């Protein structure tokens, strides 16, 4: 069974990208780090864009084997009402955050499209930049989301290996590999300004995953020339449930992947979340990563109730306060940037779409 479209199953001009990731690569880690650092400095300067996630709801209809919010977990379910969302946003604004990523599980009746669109509008009234990591939508829905003030979406394929994908997504709408694969294209078609891609590292052979992710990015860049592209590097973290990743990714390999993406795609935003340790995050700042999450809570309602002991979607590793984290960046001669957007730039991506 070959479920892969042509643009994903064969690449062009990827010799160097492959070579950078080989177990016996001719490039040392130190060589790649130096090149990646120079490219990052030239293109992005000595700055780091900051954002924070806001979990709107942990209701979910899917059975992803690796996720703490999968529908068979005993996790208590709740969603934030618009008034609660405002309260969370206010708590985030007190931390200086102006760039927010809204998250939900797969589409459910409790957290459906209308709920998400209303939440985007609520967030856009308070924040400069709003993006969404939720369920796959139709072109028309993405268009509505853009009109409500959403600038981009994050959607991970999780794994590009169709067999692993089928096994891990045990039930629910997320079972459909092709549907998920084509989601970033639909979002851009609908007027989203940017899409963030990634694989959940640990699920399948990391070298192979990186290569297919790279092809996916190139394909989107060619097809949608206005698209802003970003890549995240989430590694599986301990969560509710007892899933053990079959292909654990070491710090060395993760660093190598980040350098390879920076070198192959010098202009794209590379993102690292609080899933990673303080030492790894501090070390990678300035070497390739240009965007980081900060002071993250992965529980629903976690900002206005920071004492909650509830377990989130995954366990945060870098739990430093915004202040401590920014101090660490400044120590490295990197300016933390909270506001790097203007809400007047929200709206669909092309002039033909503007109303």
């Amino acid at each position: 069974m070959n479920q892969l479209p042509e643009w994903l199953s064969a690449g062009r001009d990827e010799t160097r990208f492959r070579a950078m990731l080989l177990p016996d690569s001719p490039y040392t880690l130190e060589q790649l780090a130096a090149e990646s650092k120079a490219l990052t400095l030239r293109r992005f300067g000595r700055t780091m864009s900051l954002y924070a996630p806001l979990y709107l709801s942990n209701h979910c209809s899917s059975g992803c084997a690796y996720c703490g919010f999968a529908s068979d977990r005993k996790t208590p379910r709740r969603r934030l009402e618009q008034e609660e969302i405002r309260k969370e946003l206010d708590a985030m604004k007190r931390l200086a955050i102006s760039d927010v990523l809204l998250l939900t599980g797969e589409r459910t009746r409790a957290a459906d499209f209308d709920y998400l669109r209303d939440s985007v509008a609520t967030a856009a009234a308070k924040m400069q930049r709003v993006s969404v990591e939720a369920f796959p939508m139709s072109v028309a829905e993405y268009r509505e989301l853009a009109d409500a003030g959403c600038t981009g979406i994050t959607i991970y394929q999780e794994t590009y290996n169709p067999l692993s994908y089928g096994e891990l997504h045990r039930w629910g709408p997320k079972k459909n590999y092709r549907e998920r694969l084509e989601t970033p294209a639909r979002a851009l078609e609908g007027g989203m300004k940017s899409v963030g891609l990634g694989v959940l590292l640990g699920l399948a052979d990391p070298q192979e995953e990186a290569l297919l992710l790279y092809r996916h990015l190139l394909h989107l860049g060619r097809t949608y020339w206005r698209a802003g592209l970003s890549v995240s590097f989430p590694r599986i973290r301990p969560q509710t449930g007892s899933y053990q990743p079959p292909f654990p990714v070491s710090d060395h390999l993760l660093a190598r992947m980040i350098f390879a993406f920076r070198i192959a795609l010098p202009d794209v935003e590379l993102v690292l979340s609080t899933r990673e340790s303080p030492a790894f995050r501090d070390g990678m700042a300035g070497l390739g990563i240009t965007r980081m999450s900060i002071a993250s809570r992965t529980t629903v309602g976690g900002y206005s109730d920071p004492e909650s002991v509830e377990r989130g979607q995954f366990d945060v590793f870098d739990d430093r306060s915004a202040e401590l984290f920014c101090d660490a960046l400044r120590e490295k001669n990197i300016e933390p940037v909270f506001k790097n957007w203007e809400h007047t730039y929200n709206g669909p991506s092309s002039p033909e779409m503007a109303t």
Partner: protein
Amino acid sequence: MDLLHLGSYTLSSRLILGTGKFSSASVMLEAVKASGAELVTVALRRFNREQPGDDLFTPLTSIPGITLMPNTSGASTAAEAVHAARIARELSGSPFIKVEIHPNPQHLMPDPIETYEASKILAKEGFLVMPYIPADPVLAKRLEEAGCVSVMPLGSAIGSGQGLATAEMLRIIIRESNIPVIVDAGLRSPSEAALAMEMGCDAVLVNSAVAVAGNPPDMAEAFAEAVAAGRKAFRAGIMEKSGLAAATSPLTSFLGSEA
């Protein structure tokens, strides 16, 4: 006095500085002071009225003798840029606007169509419009006709440090323009800035090359000196390069000797 005229403004420094990409606001301020720049650009998206520690605009207003020019970087359409320009004028009080529209956030190439549309509207509204453009001689003249006070063609891609990759087009723009031509983007070192000035550019705008230098204030000063030297050389008249070597056998002997 050799002054740069931009609308009703006259400047003695021909170095314009960008303010993004610095490691901190204090390093940026030191670099601006060291550069002697009188015109400094700052992105509206880096204005932050709610978090003074994250704001680039207010600290710049503490430097005497500089005029701030907000820019619309982040806008991807004419409509967004026009809206941003109006907000920026409201917040900064500056009549200048650097129209910067890049629909592709990766390579940050300016969109000539949207830039033209936005510039036309903003010039009519009384802004002193300085559009960041591809090095296209026709577009430059169209923007002059639209009422811009200068054009800012790119030397090469933003942050690329590739220098004056567009030199041939820049020469045409300089030759034909009635408004100041300011090379913006791509300059890596002071010698490249000097070269741009020797070619006859009226000013240069530099950001990355100063911001990511080992010592940004020193680099800012070095750029200022190079720009001044290049300008002086241009005004003094640079000698011609030597011509072709004489052909070994005469090309016009068939004409016989002149009577």
